[in-house]
Structures are given as C-alpha cells and as structure tokens.
C-alpha cells in the first residue's frame, strides 16, 4: 500500500487526539496519561530530529537538554513550593509555578548550554561527535547526582502540577491538550524551518559540506544554529515531562534516554516531519503492552530495532509511503 505522506501525517495527529478523546469518554485517565507521555516524547524527538534528520548529526546526548528542561522546572517549582529565593550569586529570583515562565527558562537554559556544547563539539565529526555528546550528557548526569541541594540521586518531587493561565492542569485531558498544542506548534515551526533557506542549507550541509562551503555558507554555523534550536525544543519537552510526572531525577539525563530518543526517530523514519510522532506512539504502545506481558520487554525492543536497522530503512513512514529515509 502506497500512501501520500501528507495523509499519513494527518492520520497520525488525528489518532493522537482520538485515543485520549475516547479515553475521556470511557473514563480511562491512565490512557490519557499514556497519550500525554507519547506527545511529550514525540516533542523531544522532534527536537532531536532537527539535528539528526536534517543536519545529519548523530547526537547521542540529547537527554542532556531533556534533563536541563526537567531541572529548570524542578528548581523553579521547588523554590516556589518552599517559598525560598533562588540565589544565583549576583541576583536573587523567586521560584515560579507558571508553565509559560518555566518553559521560557527551560528553553533559554537548554539553548545556552547547547550553544556552548555545540561550539566545542561541532569542530569534530562522525564518531567523535557521537561519543563527545554522550560524554557531555553523562557529565550532567553525574553532576545532578552529586547536587544534594536538589535531591541528588533521589531526585526532586513537586507536589502540585504547575499552572497554565485559564486551565486546570491537574485534569489529565487538559494537560494533554497543552502538550498536544505545543507539539503541533513545534511541528509547524519544524515544517517552516525545513522549507526555509536555512533548512535547505542545513540539509545540503548534511549531503555535502564541501559544496555548501563552496557557495559561501559556513556549515559549522548552520549546524550550531540547528543544535541550539534542537536543544531548546528538547528542553521544553523535558519541562513538560517533569510536569507530567511531577518529579525530576538524574535519570532524565541518562544515556539510555538519549538512545531511546534516537530509537523513536528510527522507528518512525529519519528526517520525516512526523517520524518522531509515529515513533513515540509506537514506543509508548510497545512499552505499555509488552511491558504488561513480560518484565523483559527490552529484549523484544532490541530485536525489533535490530530488524529495522538491518532490513528496513525508512521506518514506518518509509514503509507506508514507499520512500526511503534520509541518509545520515
């Protein structure tokens, strides 16, 4: 069966709304939580897909930004919850329980760290880039473990979900709505970026950096902008994820999460707009159903992944539309 990619995309988004809608009617709040989890993981993977799919940079450390977003939420909400000021040395700021404020901080911090790490790592390429991004994420992981003020290894619990003006975020369906709208907005942004001169140049730099240089563009600068944008989006997802669980811990920085984000993209299809969304839905579905059947569901995930890598290029979208994925 060969389908038009636009139709596939529309169907996926429709499905992602229909499932929690149905769950609301039959009163299954847990299913709504699952859908919210899928939407947030999709958002994180959309961020990664900008550098991985369009830019061709295999970042094996995107959990770093996910964790930064999570800790941005955790720290702000912790100070609001304990009525203590956050002392930055030169300035003291209040905590916050307002989602928009937290999102801005999460994206700002992630973008800043992405810029610094990008400047360091984008001088390298290939295997070096993979290992170095992994190592930097691990650095933050160990830092979070040793940072006793914010829970250290045990993490930080936030008792009340942060608020959004005009909505009751504690109602699962309303929180899902927030996450879904954010996901759609970011997907829209992603589509616009992909079609913009910047996106085209980035794509070209993946295919041949030398030629891009020859027409007067700097591939490293293009990649740096993409890396910062990508980090900010994944950071935003991290803040939402922390709000979903009302809990942050060093495991948000863990290298398995970085690996899983890449896996989501591969399952869906590399460099596809909706690849991460399909991948996240399938991943959360597998996790739920296989996880219910056996404690060892990671074996099956590993086997599926091996088959996709060895035999099926292009992921699910490639399968449905008959087009191969981007070569990274």
């Amino acid at each position, binding site marked *: 069966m060969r389908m038009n990619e636009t139709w596939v995309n529309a169907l996926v988004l429709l499905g992602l709304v229909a499932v929690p809608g149905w769950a609301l009617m039959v009163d299954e709040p847990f299913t709504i939580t699952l859908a919210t989890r899928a939407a947030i993981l999709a958002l994180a993977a959309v961020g990664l897909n900008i550098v991985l799919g369009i830019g061709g940079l295999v970042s094996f450390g995107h959990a770093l930004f996910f964790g930064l977003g999570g800790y941005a939420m955790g720290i702000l909400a912790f100070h609001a919850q304990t009525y203590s000021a956050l002392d930055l040395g030169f300035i003291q700021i209040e905590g916050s329980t307002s989602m928009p404020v937290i999102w801005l901080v999460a994206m700002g911090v992630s973008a800043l760290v992405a810029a610094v790490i990008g400047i360091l790592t984008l001088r390298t390429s290939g295997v*070096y880039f993979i290992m170095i991004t*992994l190592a930097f994420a691990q650095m933050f992981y160990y*830092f979070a473990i040793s940072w006793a003020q914010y829970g250290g290894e045990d993490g930080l619990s936030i008792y009340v979900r942060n608020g959004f003006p005009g909505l009751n975020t504690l109602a699962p369906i309303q929180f899902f709505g927030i996450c879904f709208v954010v996901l759609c907005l970011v997907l829209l942004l992603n589509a616009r970026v992909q079609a913009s001169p910047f996106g085209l140049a980035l794509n070209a730099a993946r295919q041949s950096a030398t030629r891009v240089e020859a027409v007067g563009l700097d591939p490293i600068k293009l990649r740096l902008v993409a890396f910062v944008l990508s980090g900010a989006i994944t950071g935003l997802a991290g803040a939402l994820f922390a709000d979903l669980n009302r809990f942050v811990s060093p495991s948000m920085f863990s290298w398995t999460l970085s690996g899983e984000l890449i896996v989501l993209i591969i399952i869906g299809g590399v460099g596809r707009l909706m690849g991460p969304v399909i991948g996240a839905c399938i991943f959360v579905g597998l996790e739920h159903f296989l996880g219910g059947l056996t404690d060892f569901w990671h074996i099956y995930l590993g086997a599926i992944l091996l088959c996709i890598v060895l035999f099926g290029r292009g992921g699910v979208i490639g399968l449905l539309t008959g087009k191969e994925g981007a070569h990274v």
Partner: protein
Amino acid sequence: MSLILIIEQILNGLQFGVMLFLMAAGLTLIFGVMGLINLAHGSLYMVGAFAAAAVAGLTGSFLLGLIAALAAAALAGALIEMVVIRRLYRAAHLDQVLATFALILIFSEGTRWVFGSFPLFLDIPAALSGPVTLPGGIEYPLYRLALIGIGLGVGLGLWLLIERTRIGIQIRAGENDREMIAALGVDISRLYTVVFALGAALAGLAGALVGAIQSVQVGMGEPVLILAFVVIVIGGIGSIRGAFIGALLVGLTDTLGGVFLPELFKLFMDGGAAQKSGSALASMGIYLLMGAVLIWRPTGLFGARA
C-alpha cells in the same frame, strides 16, 4: 594529608586507569581496524564478569573463573560479530549506534533473565587477598596491586602482538588498506572476527577482574563503556598508545579529583560547602579534561583521522 595517602590514591588511580585501558584498547582496536563504533562493548564486560562469578561460584576457583570470563566474552564477541556486526562495517555510524544499542538491550535483559536482578559476588582469591607492605611502610591491597600488574602486562602483550607478530602485521595492514590486504590473500572476514573476539576478551577480562572488587550486576558495563569513550576520545580514536595514555589520565584525574578537590576547596570555603562543591566538580573532572583536550586537539592526543 600525608604522603602515604597521596601515594595510595595514585595507586588507586593507576589501578582504575589500567582497567579502563583494557576496555578502551578493545574499543579503539575495533574502531581502528573495522571503523565500527561498538556500544555493546560494555555488555561484553558484563558477560565476562557474570561468567567469572558463575564459574568461580560453582568451582571455587578464581583462575577458572577468569578463564571462563575470557572464553565467554570472546565467544559472545565472535558470535555477535558473525551474526550482526559483520553487516554493519559499511553502514552509516547511525546504524552502527542503533544496532549495537539494540544488542545492549538484548544482552542486559537476557542476563537479567538468566541470573535475576540481584547482584552476584565474586571473591578475591585467597592468595591475593589482604594487604601488602610497600617500601616506605605503605599498606596496600595486594589484589589491586595485582590488577595494576595484570593491566600493564596485558598492555605489553598487546603491544608485542601488534608490533611483532604476523597477525599484528595483518591488523595494522587492515587499518591502512582493507582492499589491498584482501587482495594479498588474507581472509579479511576471519581477521575481523579474530580482532573483534580479541577486543571482547579484553573487555571480559576487565569485567571479571573488576567484578571481584565491585558487585557483578546487570548494567555494570555501560558506565565503564562511557568512560572508555572518554578515554579514546582523549587518546585519539584508533590509537592503542593513545588509549593507554588516555586511560591513565582519566583514572588518575577521576581518583585524585574525588579525594583532593574537596580538600583544596576547604582552603577557602567552610567544610560542608567545600565538600559539596569539591565533589560536584570532581564528578565532572574527566569531562572537563576531555573538553580541554578537544579544544587543544580536536582528534585527540594521538589521533590521526577524524
């Protein structure tokens, strides 16, 4: 802060460093010869540790455990090379990362399936237990001293193997030009399997040796794997000499940083805060070292290619 403590910590750092070298040597060898990034190397470390703990538990002999670790890891390495890895040599790095990530999932969960979630324990052999007195009156665990000796010995053996034997010549030739040595009649696919099994055996040996001073559990391989990555990024990917220098640097930085940074901070901060910021900085020490090396030399200390 006495001289004895400093020497003890330097020995601890060396011991950590040579064990990292065993891991990193295999990784860098596999990358140098086959151009493959192998995330499942940490799983082979775990396989070695579990094999050693299981066999030593059954027979009561640490030596048999070590032999079992070498054999099991080399066998597992040869097996995954022939079934999976062989198809990835010409594939993109992303595919290599994913396939070996999948192997980690399969190995970790498979081991949990067989051995359960509880850690196993591997005892230090009686002949090597207890402290030994070094010149200068320093008491140091004999086992850790033995680890340093074994690590250095394996390093020397590896150097002899690569520089002085026929298979070493083939390995070096394979790094430079795989078509040419295939044309000269070397069975390249057998050579790759042998190199992969050799790297796996080194990882398994490290797992078994370290397993006796830590607990043997699922997931023990990945933190070491990531440290080994840091080592070979610092040393230069593909260079065994780089892996050796990098491993010692990382081992010493991590061990000495954890002990001395809090002490250093106490000079200008009060005790509790110094302890906290010192250990937080120490936990990031090796990554800062890596960042510094990369700014100075983007391909590592001894790396030739990117």
